[in-house]
């Protein structure tokens, strides 16, 4: 299952909720304001590192670049473009947008 997050983890609990509910084998894609969760030095960094042990974590690269943080991506988070987003939606059986 693909879990799509679009909120900064510092202003919204959607990533926390996703990490609580998502089951092993799930994949997480950070888009829009959720890309901040994938940047080093962010207060959420330890949580995302812990989550990376359980889930494959992706970030939408154009959103990261737009926000001036392409050089702060946490190692191990996989950048994808919109085509990669489509591939993730296709390869997973279903997806939940944590709006």
């Amino acid at each position, binding site marked *: 299952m693909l879990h799509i997050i*679009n909120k900064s983890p510092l202003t919204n609990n959607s990533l926390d909720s996703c990490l609580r509910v998502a089951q092993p084998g799930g994949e997480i894609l950070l888009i829009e*304001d959720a890309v901040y969760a994938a940047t080093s030095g962010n207060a959420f960094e330890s949580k995302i590192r812990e989550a990376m042990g359980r889930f494959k974590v992706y970030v939408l690269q154009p959103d990261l670049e737009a926000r001036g943080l392409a050089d702060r991506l946490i190692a191990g988070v996989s950048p994808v473009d*919109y*085509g990669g987003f*489509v591939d993730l939606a*296709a390869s997973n059986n279903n997806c939940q947008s944590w709006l």
Partner: protein
Amino acid sequence: MKFGIVVNEGPYQHQASDTAYLFCKAAIAKGHEVWRVFFYHDGVNNSSKLTEPPQDDRHIVNRWSKLNEEQGVDLVVCVAAALRRGIKEDNLAKGFRISGLGQLTEAGIQTDRTVVFGD
């Protein structure tokens, strides 16, 4: 693969509509079909032909219309949500159609994947 897309937010205010559009474009480029885009909640505002962004900005409404014209993507605006927000046939942009919520359920039934974009 057939995709159904749901857009829950209006243009410009939130990035959801942009992300949904770029997802659709990428899906089509990869040979997938975007079977329907369903506009719900404030997403219905994506269909107003009265939209006039500044000239140096993207025209979100026209971009959707073009997707319908060139790729045949079915653009459906929820009637109940639209009427609440002052969207009617009179001010509906080209390529969109107003219909019932059942069209959203139908998209879920007929497509292989449903992806929701919102706030």
